[in-house]
């Protein structure tokens, strides 16, 4: 087993403090980046690392940075997306709680590379401890001269703020997040213009996930090729945190090479199914990822491979359901979630998510009919690809996959009820 990188401080005592972080080699990458590297070199290394956005969309991080115009009439911003809300996902929280300086260090390097002087971390409102730890880390960094004016005597200035969300899944969507950051409802913006051109406070904005940012110091320190090589052979892209939940013996966050087969994650790392029951279904990338059947779990956990079988990598959150799982109830939980979290701005998501939730609730109550399943499919198809932001598609993922892949179970439920 190789040394953990992203999770190396998860069980280390007081790793959230500056002293312990520095003892472990912390802020060495910052020194290297600011004193030995040119911004372009940093972007090149990140490009080479194959690091793709760990929030869910999987967009290459280096490429995202390169979209930011060098000269802009408005200030440029870095926004770190710590609005971890995708059901099943709990990988950014331990980073922020146990390794907040990794986020701060990664953010400073990112800002230096892209020419940014103000960074904000948008943390979901429920993550009180994450907020405390990040604020603590930022204060320590200011005191040490890693933040503020003339960082490490290089003339580089940077300010950093923690912004607390207030309960809205949609703020994980990058433009919804920007709106929320600006003190408004978190309703997604029309694109274009893309945030790289017109983002926070109208300025060009880089938006990266916590896990992506936390990987940056390692990439700078050891090189992009090194990081890329940590991924599975032929796949690359480094390591990733896989939060596993549901009916497994050992739920937890596992740091594994990108491309690790799903089966290995469930059966090897997470210890297999509780009570040695049979596997019924698994969601591979957070609630929005279309569900997989047991015969599909040999898929490497990686963006293209999961897309190939009609699902997605998303946040990499693996949710495991054993043979006793009531899929009608499970889908109802998910549909109610999307209906509750739809921001209400665009028609298909606003109306469609609520409609699907009502139908599945009625089915669960025993008042459904077979035609309702067709209606769900048709609603999902009416939402798919037609919404302002990805939340609509996120709701479609489970709706279509549950009802089509497990149609018989839904039909049986409608005929004879649960179990």
């Amino acid at each position: 087993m190789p040394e953990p990188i992203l999770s190396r401080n998860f069980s280390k005592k007081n790793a959230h403090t500056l002293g312990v972080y520095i003892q472990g080699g912390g802020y060495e990458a910052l020194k290297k980046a600011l004193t030995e590297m040119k911004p372009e070199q940093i972007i090149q290394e990140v490009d080479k690392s194959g690091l793709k956005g760990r929030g869910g969309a999987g967009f290459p991080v280096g490429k995202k940075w390169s979209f930011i115009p060098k000269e802009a009439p408005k200030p440029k911003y870095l926004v770190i997306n710590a609005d971890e809300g995708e059901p099943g996902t709990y990988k950014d929280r331990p980073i922020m709680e146990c390794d907040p300086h990794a986020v701060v260090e990664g953010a400073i390097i990112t800002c230096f590379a892209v020419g940014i002087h103000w960074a904000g971390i948008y943390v979901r409102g429920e993550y009180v401890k994450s907020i405390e730890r990040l604020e603590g880390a930022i204060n320590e960094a200011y005191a040490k001269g890693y933040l503020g004016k003339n960082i490490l005597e290089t003339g580089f200035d940077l300010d950093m703020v923690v912004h607390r969300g207030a309960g809205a899944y949609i703020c994980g969507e990058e433009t919804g997040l920007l709106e929320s950051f600006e003190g408004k409802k978190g309703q997604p913006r029309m694109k274009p213009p893309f945030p790289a051109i017109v983002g926070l406070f109208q300025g060009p904005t880089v938006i990266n996930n916590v896990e992506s940012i936390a990987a940056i110091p390692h990439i700078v320190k050891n090189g992009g090729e090194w990081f890329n090589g940590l991924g599975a052979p032929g796949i690359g892209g480094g390591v990733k945190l896989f939060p596993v939940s549901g009916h497994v013996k050992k739920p937890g966050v596992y740091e594994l090479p990108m491309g690790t087969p799903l089966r290995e994650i469930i059966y090897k790392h997470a210890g297999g199914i509780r009570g040695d029951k049979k596997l019924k279904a698994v969601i591979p990338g957070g609630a929005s990822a279309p569900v997989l059947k047991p015969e599909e779990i040999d898929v490497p956990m990686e963006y293209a491979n999961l897309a190939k079988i009609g699902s997605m990598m998303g946040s990499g959150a693996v949710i495991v359901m054993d043979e006793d799982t009531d899929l009608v109830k499970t889908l109802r939980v998910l549909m109610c979630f999307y209906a509750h979290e739809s921001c209400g701005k665009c028609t298909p998501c606003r109306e469609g998510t609520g409609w699907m939730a009502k139908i599945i609730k009625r089915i669960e109550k025993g008042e459904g009919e077979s035609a309702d399943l067709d209606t769900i499919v048709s609603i999902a198809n009416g939402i798919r690809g037609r919404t302002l932001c990805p939340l609509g598609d996120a709701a479609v993922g489970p709706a279509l996959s549950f009802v089509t892949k497990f149609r018989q179970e839904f039909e049986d439920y409608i005929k004879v009820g649960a179990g």
Partner: protein
Amino acid sequence: MPTLTIDDQQVTVDQGTTILEAAKKLGIAIPHFCYHPRLTKVDACRMCLVEVKDAPKLVTSCSNAVRDNMVVFTGTPKVEEARKSILEFILINHPLDCPICDKAGECTLQDYYFRYSSQPSRFKDNKVEKHKVVDLGAKMVLDSERCVVCGRCVRFCREVVGEENLGIFNRGDHSEIGTYPGKKIEHNYQGNLVDVCPVGALTAKDFRFKCRSWLLCKADTICPGCSNGCNAVVHFTLRSFNGIKGQRVFRLTPRENNDVNKIWLCDVGRWGYSFVDSIDRLTTPALKKGEDFVKGDWDTALRETASGLKTVVERYGPSAVGVIPSPHLTNEDLYALKCLFSCVLKVANIDFKLPGLDKGEGDKLLLKADRHPNTRGAELLGLSGTGLSAEAMMEKVKTGEIRALYLAGSDPVKYIGEKAEEALSRAELLIFQGTNFSASCKLAHVILPGATFVEKEGTFTNYQGRLQKINKALEPLGEALADWEIFTRLGKRLGAYPSYRCAEEVFKDMAREVAPFNGLSYQKIGPQGIKIADSSQ
């Protein structure tokens, strides 16, 4: 400039034009709710989805700019299916009771449903309940259940009026527009919220449930509410409905004119039309007998007026006559007046400028302090400064130096108050020509009933010096006549006067005689008006 193909037709448009706007240029209408040409785009309703060749998904035509060589299809099965689906989504929580909705007949959602969907509802569950009959402001009412959350009203307030007083509360299918609880919209542009609302969510208190929209006729007009000259459409009918007897004009709506009012109309102007059918309309000529007015016919009234004026002029000279026209009158009315008094009777005391005429409360957007539609026209026609000022005339009436005073639509008592009242009551001959009974009218010896702006043809010159046309939508109420016609009839009795048969004939003479109007004709004015002079000094 990019050239693209939409439904097999080529079109070249400016860089940055959206697909929807380019299609409009070709006469291809793409359905939409949230898009409004005068508001920012939000990409929310998704009704305007179209197919673009090589694009993986349907794209919103309201927000995506065209590219050179783009190939767009607006009526493919994929697009049609999407429209059906969006309409079905909107309708699941929308009341399906068009027959009792006041917007029926002019509702975008209703129209789209019939054009693009016409399918029965598959929705079997309970609709979301929202607020009904919300008193959102003094002028309009909100029915949240009919709202499609397009947000046009919210953006209108924020972007056009500059007040952030409407919002969308809650989220998901519980989203609801509203003001802050307990607050009301107070601005002068509430009617536009009703206009921009594509559905029956916002309705005007003045209009709702008074008349079905399809029973109304429409005519282009100019709002007479102030000197801005907003382009408008008057909605009227000759039938009586719902026991609202005698109401012929039901509303004014804005007509687009980028140079004047964009596509808006203020509430003061929009809802200022009620005088047209009001109970105090002057509908027959009348003569004062003792303390009372006695209805007369035109012949008698004009004979009295003509002989009265003639006598005064003959005995005391033209300086014993004063004329105060109102800038509410059209250029044609004023020109006919000028011909009569200045040319025929040689009266110099003509002045429309009553003190305080331009002292209303204006705003930054449309409403002007001068609440008269033709002040600039009156200026250009020289209806001031040739003799005594209107105020001086009052003094001379009081002292008896002016014996006959002709009020053409003007109401000195309204502007000057008691002093005017005292003066007018001393006049030997006071003629009042106008549309409605007033404090000045009360003191008149002869009343000549005039037509309102919807009852006659003519032109106004707005504060910018833009000449714009009003049209005759309705016959004058009762025996009222267009003012130019009254002057023509009077003129005949007083000397050599052209026998005008219509306003256009008056205009032709005016176009020949008065410099700023030279060379113009009704045809040249067109529906958007034409600039003939600078703004007033």
